[in-house]
């Protein structure tokens, strides 16, 4: 076997070894399943509430900044705590937070809540529980603020003279209180769930095909390097030198 062929064989052995190691590692990992829930933050409030009156103008900001900010709110540990409280069987708040990944999708107003768990059903439950906890927290906050503002307006309305109450100033405040009352009762309706979490049997981790593919690729790279590091055995080096000398001699003879 020539020196080059021997080296190629060594590279092949190391490549296969790395691929096999990746396969073994990958198969030894516990299987994990994931489930996604999608939320849409298209507006501040739903169109029906917007119909009740002004004051709901959409913020003028870069949509990517807005959705990243919303994602930060979804990512809050408070949400994991609320989910753990509502579903004690899903584990502690830390466990839920560790199983959840929140990502904002660029150039959209959509946030994905992904949950990983040991079974498809559990992954879907964790994602749903987390998403629902977020929606509940978010709506509770909206209602609380609407109620506080409504109370303040009510006090102001009560302090008005009968004349003011019967005219434009009173009508304005009644109009605002009416909208706030609907907001307090129904919430803003935003964000909307555009996809509920579903259980699927596709494993998210380990990705054996990917692990083995990259294992083989990187094994090949490492193999080339390591075989380059290997020096020839004295016998093989002597044989190669003899071959080169014979070749040179043949060329010299031919040229004469």
């Amino acid at each position: 076997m020539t020196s080059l062929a021997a080296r190629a064989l060594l590279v092949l052995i190391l490549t296969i070894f790395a691929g096999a190691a990746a396969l073994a590692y990958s198969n030894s990992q516990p299987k994990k399943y994931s489930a996604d829930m999608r939320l849409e933050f298209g507006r501040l409030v739903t169109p029906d509430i917007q119909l009740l009156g002004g004051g709901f103008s959409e913020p003028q900001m870069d949509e990517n900044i807005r959705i990243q900010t919303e994602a930060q709110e979804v990512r809050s540990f408070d949400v994991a705590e609320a989910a753990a409280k509502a579903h004690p069987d899903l584990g502690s708040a830390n466990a839920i937070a560790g199983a959840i990944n929140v990502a904002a999708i660029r150039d959209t107003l959509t946030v994905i809540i992904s949950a990983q768990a040991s079974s498809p059903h559990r992954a879907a439950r964790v994602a749903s529980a987390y998403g629902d906890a977020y929606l509940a927290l978010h709506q509770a906050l909206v209602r609380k603020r609407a109620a506080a503002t409504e109370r303040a307006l009510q006090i102001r309305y009560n302090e008005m003279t009968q004349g003011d109450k019967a005219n434009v100033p009173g009508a304005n405040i009644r109009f605002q209180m009416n909208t706030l009352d609907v907001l307090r009762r129904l919430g803003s309706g935003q964000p909307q769930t555009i996809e509920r979490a579903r259980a699927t049997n596709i494993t998210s981790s380990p990705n054996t095909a990917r692990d083995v593919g990259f294992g083989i690729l990187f094994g090949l790279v490492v193999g080339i390097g390591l075989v380059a590091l290997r020096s020839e055995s004295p016998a093989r080096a002597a044989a190669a030198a003899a071959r080169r000398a014979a070749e040179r001699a043949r060329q010299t003879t031919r040229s004469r």
Partner: protein
Amino acid sequence: MPRPRLLPSRGIGWWALSVAVALLTARLTMDSVQFGCAIAILVLTVCLYVRDRTAGLVAVWLVWLLVPLLRRILFQYVPSFGTDPLAVVPFLVTAAVVSFELSQATLSRRTRRLLLLGVGGYAIGLPLGALASPKTAAFALFAYLTALGCFVIGYREAEQKRLTLPSVLMIVTPLLALYAFRQYYFPLPKWDLTWLHTAGVTSATSSETGRIRVWSTLNSPATFATVLGVAAITLVTWRKLTPVRLVSIFAVLGALALTYVRSVWAAILFTGVAILLATRGGALKRLGPVIILLVLLAPVVLGGSTRAAISDRFGTFGSLGQDTSAQARLGTSGGLIPQAFATPLGNGLGSAGEANKLSGSEGLRYSDNGYLAVLVQTGPVGFLTIISVIIVAIASACRNVWRRGDPANVLVFGALTFLAVTMVAGDVLFGITGMIFWYLCGLAVRRRELLEEAKS
């Protein structure tokens, strides 16, 4: 080169090492594909270097030029969260090779002093940097010293006819220029688009509507433009001007135009004049044909709107007083110089430049001035120490080309002048440009020593 004892070349030792490395690579790939890739590149480069110095050095420069693109592609298809290990790979392979080079090099006493001065200059900024953010300061010190270490690579190569970096640049940068044209004239590939959105590249919009400033396989238009500048100088000054080389020069200069980086355009023009003066007009026979062909062909090759956009950008040189970018740079420098001189030990390593990104603090990441970045980080004492090493290297390059204007001397002088001028508008001493800069300094110093030895 003599093989390091830690790296077995045969027998059970080699097999044990190979099995361990293959297992480690497979295991790290499970954690993160980027991690596995980083280890694979590191192992390949170091092993190639141990087997054949030239092959190893070529691999190092290729890693610097191509790994940013690899990072983007992997990020697109197998995204990872947190710090990307591939970002550190070019520094690690360079540090590994530099440590091997240091163990092999026989440096003159003067050169040892120069290197110690450089190390000392950076070390001045270490205490305050470590107090503010130890991680950032450590990375900054590692990055700057790795670049400084390339001085030794250049120093050792000075006696060889084939210089690795110029050879790599001559072959690879025209290909990078082709990729840059693809970025400019066609919709951006997915991985570049994602990179543009996620990496916070602040200056990627070109003067031409709907187009970007190209960055090819590197991380930003400014870095790419600086590398193209060095490549253009190499192509024009170093080897024989063949038709293929002329095409390469036009590709490189065309891509340089599409970066819209004015400081590099200005530095190229300045360098051309400096080379003509230093060679006492001798370089005109190389520069002349290139300039004439460029003037004749550029209007034909570039499209109407691109030509207009480049002309507009070039025209802003005449109105820098009203230019937002120029005024912002002047404002930063004006405000920071007195402040930097008031702190003798500087604000600490990592308080400015790219390393500052790690700290997440309110540092001066985009210092827009390499000299200022050094001054802010190491204070006036460190600044003078480091600059004195640079001055010695540039003076050596100048003296070499004045005494003997052979192509290698002209190349080193031209590229060093170009980088020294570009440093006024960018943090050249960090990353690939820093590696190139100190490599050229090593070449210049050693070539001067060789000239003096030959003379004596």
